[in-house]
């Protein structure tokens, strides 16, 4: 599904995003909560207003998890095993929200990278995020 070149591209991009994980993560989350308000239902215990520290903490955690997965895309299920269990048995998030978040992450990347977010990079990133979400949801049923 992902070529060797695409995997290298993805690993490279996420490594560069790691130092700004909190900003990237918070932006993507805020976009998701604003465009898809139903997604807020899973975070009723957090302050989801813009610039909230909760957004940055949660956003950073998510981006770092994605970056970790990007290092070894062939073995996503290994890296994601604990998160699979968490999302399936505790969080029980409707999987459509993974698609919403992936889309908002792509918008965040477009804002952050501008022209550098080329169609080829976009295609690779979309495939990776879809694969990531699919592995994350593997234990749902």
């Amino acid at each position, binding site marked *: 599904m992902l070529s060797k070149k695409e995997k290298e591209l993805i690993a490279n991009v996420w490594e560069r995003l790691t130092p700004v994980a909190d900003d990237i993560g918070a*932006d993507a989350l*805020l*976009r998701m*909560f*604003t*465009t898809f308000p139903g997604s807020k239902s899973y975070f009723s215990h957090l302050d989801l207003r*813009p610039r909230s520290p909760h957004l940055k903490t949660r956003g950073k955690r998510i981006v770092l998890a994605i970056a970790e997965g990007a290092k070894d895309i062939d073995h996503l299920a290994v890296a994601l095993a604990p998160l699979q269990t968490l999302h399936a048995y505790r969080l029980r998030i409707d999987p459509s929200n993974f698609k919403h978040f992936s*889309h*908002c992450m*792509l*918008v965040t990347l*477009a*804002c*952050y*990278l*501008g*022209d550098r*977010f080329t*169609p*080829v990079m*976009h*295609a690779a990133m*979309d495939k990776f995020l879809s694969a990531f979400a699919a592995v994350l949801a593997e234990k749902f049923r």
Partner: protein
Amino acid sequence: MVEWTDSERTIINGIFANLNYEDIGAKALCRCLIVYPWTLRYFGAFGNLYNAEAIIANPMIAAHGTKILHGLDRALKNMDDIKNTYTTLSELHSEKLRVDPDNFRLLADCLSIVIAAEMGYEFTPEMQAAWQKFLSVVVSALGRQYH
């Protein structure tokens, strides 16, 4: 009927007012064809589309992207009745062009991302929400005449 707040109307009008149709339209269609290659099935008569470079360089695709983007002008002028504005265009896509209506959403997503790349963080979460609401109404209207 879709309810639009004043803020949403301002945002959507603002995005269109600053839009370079030739640039953004071309980029959005190219991106859709590259990111979702199955959409190439509708462009068999458009010449060389063998790889990303060829798609981006193809003048017919660029012209068609511009045309599609101008198609949104109708919705902008009739925001309170987008549903009926696209009856004929929906029939065209259903009966003649035979486009799977799920593809409209893919192009809409690509358009949002091209605008985001163009505007950077000026494309705020509020703007994104209003813009995507507008596009989802258009997408829904275009899918209405499929039976």
